[in-house]
């Protein structure tokens, strides 16, 4: 009961906190002063430009932005984090205006955002990143090597629904199109949501679709107001709440590997790309899920989570 309320309060307070932290505690890099890991072995060139990392409005983005920030601060860069809301368009606009020059991103989703949801992304991370870089080059950006951490859209049902209706894979939904899907409103146009289900699986769930704020999806599933929920595959609640992650048996989902996207100017700064690559090497799907669990379930701060990740990876 208190846990559930705390989470809701969090849903209200976290955006506020992100906003205020973006507004000016750029000197709380003290977490990054300890240790003596790989991050501190690089020293930033004197003429290195200031770095502003764009963080989107969900926990994982905040954690990844903090990981980038603390490592780069340890190397002597001047780094701040800027909240850029919850839409990729806002992030791209922030890149264009120069408000940010680095952001944690997802290969396939960013590719589809840039190509107008054309469905070019494949399950292969390297191939998808190459395609992505083709589009990014036009707008002065570049994506570095993708990490092994994959965060795709995930369709989940409760254990009870799965057992009762015998649903374990997305294709099993074909006989159950009366089920209610709850997801953020962009599901209606997202290539890895309703349109993908239609084109890849020939399953039309649009009749029972309910648009919800991301924070409302899990409570709605728990109280059986919706039957199928759209979450991210690294959402720790899939495991902790015993949800059944529906197998993408016909390959709708593509390589949404976490990778850093930055301006070509920044990518040319000596030592920087190496640090970001080292961070990417430290990230795995399971590891990221655990970091998210600490954020969503244990309600730890993103900067503490980031610091302990960097330390355990020998980076800080």
């Amino acid at each position, binding site marked *: 009961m208190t846990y*559930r*309320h705390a989470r*809701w*309060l969090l*849903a*209200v307070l976290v955006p506020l906190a992100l906003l205020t932290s973006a507004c000016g505690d750029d000197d709380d890099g003290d977490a990054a002063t300890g240790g003596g890991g790989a991050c501190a072995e690089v020293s930033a060139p004197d003429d290195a430009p200031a770095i502003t990392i764009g963080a989107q409005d969900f926990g994982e983005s905040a954690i990844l932005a903090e990981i980038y920030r603390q490592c780069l601060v340890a190397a002597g860069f001047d780094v701040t984090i800027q909240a850029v809301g919850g*839409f990729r*368009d806002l992030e791209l606009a922030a890149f264009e205006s120069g408000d940010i020059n680095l952001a944690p991103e997802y290969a396939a989703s960013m590719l589809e955002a840039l190509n107008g949801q054309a469905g070019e992304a494949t399950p292969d991370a390297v191939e998808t990143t190459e395609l992505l870089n083709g589009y990014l080059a036009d707008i002065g950006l570049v994506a570095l090597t993708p990490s092994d951490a994959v965060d795709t859209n995930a369709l989940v049902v409760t254990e009870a629904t799965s057992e009762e209706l015998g649903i374990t894979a997305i294709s099993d939904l074909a006989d159950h199109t009366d089920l209610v899907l*709850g997801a*953020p*409103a*962009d599901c*209606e*146009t997202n290539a890895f949501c309703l349109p993908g289900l239609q084109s890849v699986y020939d399953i039309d769930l649009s*009749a029972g679709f*309910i*648009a*919800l*704020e991301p*924070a*409302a999806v899990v*409570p*709605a599933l*728990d*109280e059986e*107001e*919706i039957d199928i929920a759209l979450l991210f595959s690294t959402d720790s609640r899939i495991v902790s709440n015993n949800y059944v992650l529906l197998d993408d048996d016909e390959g709708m989902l593509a390589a949404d590997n976490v990778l850093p996207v930055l301006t070509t100017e920044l990518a040319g700064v000596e030592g920087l790309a190496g640090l970001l690559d080292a961070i990417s090497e430290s990230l795995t799907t399971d590891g990221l899920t655990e970091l998210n669990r600490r954020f969503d379930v244990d309600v730890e701060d993103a900067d503490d989570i980031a610091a302990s990740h960097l330390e355990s990876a020998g980076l800080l």
Partner: protein
Amino acid sequence: MSAWTEFVDYVTLADNWWGRRGIAVRIEDHVRISAFATVVAAAIAIPPALWLGHVRRGGAIAGAVVNIGRAVPSFAIVALALPISLRYGFGLGFWPTVVALVALGLPPIFTNAYAGVSGIDPAVVDAARGMGMRGPEVLWRVEVPNALPLLLAGLRISAVQIVATATLGAYVGFGGLGAFINEGFRQQDDGKLLTGAVLVAVLAIATEFLFGVGQRLLTPWTIRKGHS
């Protein structure tokens, strides 16, 4: 300009008007929840406001309590009401939204009804008592009719605010015109976004107009030649 063209394209396509997520259903939902919330807010606010105004006591404290509804952002109330609504089986959408709308609607109705009654010239009340009226009679035959113009103005303010704010329901699964705004924003579809925004504005203006007509019908003595 292009957003405007997208808006015109959207609202002139018949397919966008009908069906489960069509404009027609969403206008109906929007009107339904707004009317319901206004009625509930009025039912909660008016009786104590009239009574406290009648006895001319406790208005400041009650006003402060009621004003919490104006101080707490409606979005926060929706967010807090959702898990409670889910827990007790009231579901998504309608009820969490109604809670926020009622909280928003209470202050103008209460404050105006209270001010309407308590602000009546004491000489008028004294005259009524001098004619032999008792407490309840004074309230119903003198104070309420005198307070009616202000009371109706309070209702009108609340109703217009409620119509504009019912858009928040879209974040917790309620249809209504806010769904066009939410979808337009999330899907980067300016046509949808403007559809929601313009229709809400039209509905708010229509509400204002209807209450104006109602006010003229119910309190014709407030309309004099040469005044509006």
